[in-house]
């Protein structure tokens, strides 16, 4: 099982005046059963990259491997449906795509499209709703009467109902209030640790990268600038400086304390840092 990009290029609007190279020679391995963050400035190719994962866009050149599925550039792709069942893609602001009159119908829409009988689809819908932390009292409600955060949960449940192994999310917490965003990130972590899903998410929030992700892929001008573990990435501030990214609060605090000769090495959460500070002050 693997996700591999091999020398993938992607160009928008080939042979037109608007031709634009979005991805250049992408060689990338995504570790399975981990949470991977995709970061990078606007226009660096993050969204283009993740839309390859379920064949929504096909490479201009190169090869993509997702589990057993192989996509070669310029070769007709057969049976995209099986790839799309395997990789669930959640767009930005997925709540705008809710359309059915009841939540259960909205969530069951996907599996029914894949040929699952109605009874079974409804069963899956119920389970998916539970997975995103909403109880059965919501099933018959209109998805349009929910709050922003709840709507997004329902939209994500609709993707989970297709029982994908890989879940790809494009800026899943944009626009959510702080606690809503936190609950959403905890949900993805749980889908990874408890339900063994491989999770890829595009984000701008370094706190989320630090607190919830295992690996990080940094995109820069259509190329992979870095692919590393989250710990290695934040350990080395030269990367962050080069990318003009402010480090997560924990790292900033650690560095500031270190500059004042308070030793907090080996501490990676607020509790252990505070224990060290207490020792220093007593």
């Amino acid at each position: 099982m693997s996700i591999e990009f091999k020398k993938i290029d992607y160009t928008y609007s080939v042979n037109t005046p608007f031709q634009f190279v979005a991805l250049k020679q992408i060689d990338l391995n995504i570790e399975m059963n981990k949470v991977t963050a995709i970061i990078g400035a606007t226009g660096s190719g993050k969204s283009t990259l993740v839309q390859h994962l379920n064949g929504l866009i096909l490479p201009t050149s190169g090869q993509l491997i997702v589990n057993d599925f192989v996509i070669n550039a310029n070769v007709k792709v057969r049976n995209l449906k099986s790839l799309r069942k395997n990789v669930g893609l959640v767009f930005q602001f997925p709540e705008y795509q809710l359309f059915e009159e009841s939540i259960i119908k909205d969530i069951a829409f996907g599996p029914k499209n894949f040929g699952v009988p109605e009874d079974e689809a409804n069963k899956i819908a119920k389970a998916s709703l539970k997975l995103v932390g909403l109880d059965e009292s919501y099933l018959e409600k209109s998805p349009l009467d929910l709050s922003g955060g709840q709507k997004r949960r329902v939209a994500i449940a609709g993707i989970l109902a297709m029982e994908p192994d890989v879940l790809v999310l494009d800026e899943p917490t944009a626009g959510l209030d702080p606690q809503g965003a936190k609950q959403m990130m905890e949900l993805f972590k749980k889908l990874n640790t408890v339900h063994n899903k491989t999770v890829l998410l595009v984000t701008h929030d370094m706190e989320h990268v630090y607190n919830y992700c295992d690996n990080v892929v940094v995109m820069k001008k259509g190329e992979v600038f870095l692919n590393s573990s989250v710990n290695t990435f934040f350990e080395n501030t030269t990367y962050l400086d080069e990318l003009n990214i402010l480090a997560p609060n924990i790292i900033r605090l650690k560095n500031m304390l270190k500059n004042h000769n308070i030793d907090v090495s080996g501490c990676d959460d607020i509790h252990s840092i505070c224990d060290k500070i207490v020792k220093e002050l007593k």
Partner: protein
Amino acid sequence: MKIIDAKNIDFSYDEITHAVKSVSFSVERGSYTTIIGHNGSGKSTIAKLLIGLLPCDSGSIHIDGLELSLSNLAKIRNKVGIVFQNPDNQFIGATVRDDIAFGLENHRIDSNLMDDIINEFAIKVNMFEYLDSEPTKLSGGQKQRVAIAGALAMNPEIIIFDESTSMLDPQGKNEINNFIQELHKEKDLTILSITHDIEEVCKSDNVIVMFEGKILMEGKPCDILNQTEKLVACNLDIPFAQKVVNELRLKGISISDNLTLESLVSEICLLSLKK
């Protein structure tokens, strides 16, 4: 001197969604006020009420002493500019120049004057060399700066930012936040910013906390952002530095409230010298 004065304003979208419930607040001329609140707490509805995009069901709004009413609407909109969340939804022109010109044309500004005004504000937001660029060629932060230029060109007294940085990458967000700070300082412009960005709230003069359509608290950031339980209960967060303060207090250290890491670390160093 109050430049925004809202008294007992009420608004319902329909029988079920009572978005704003008898809200009263005022904003001082030249101040920087932030509004925070959970999703659906009524923040954006208030912004729309203030510029008359939605009519209040009851209550009154005065902008710069002028009552917001149908007959005063044009005058009020000359005083208040707004920048929305999504950079793609508010770019109207085919080029940056057209986009900044849009508001001016609507206000029937003499076309001889228009070029100078457009140039002035394009320079102001650092987009002069992009005047003939199409929106597809711009980053999110650049589009938001053009939106700000469009608002500034109307020479408003107040600018409302409705989560204007929430869709931007960290660099774009910094760029816009710093720019807003500069504008606020140099032009005596009144800023009202709806945001989830706790760092921005720390830098503002006043903060209003919305909860379920009502104002839960308002005051200086240092008096509001230390109220951990209340803020978390309404789906908000406290600054990271204050989390550390709370944790240290639990462990028996006596330390004052701190909104920034810089002030927190200097206090820790002082305490360590005194021990």
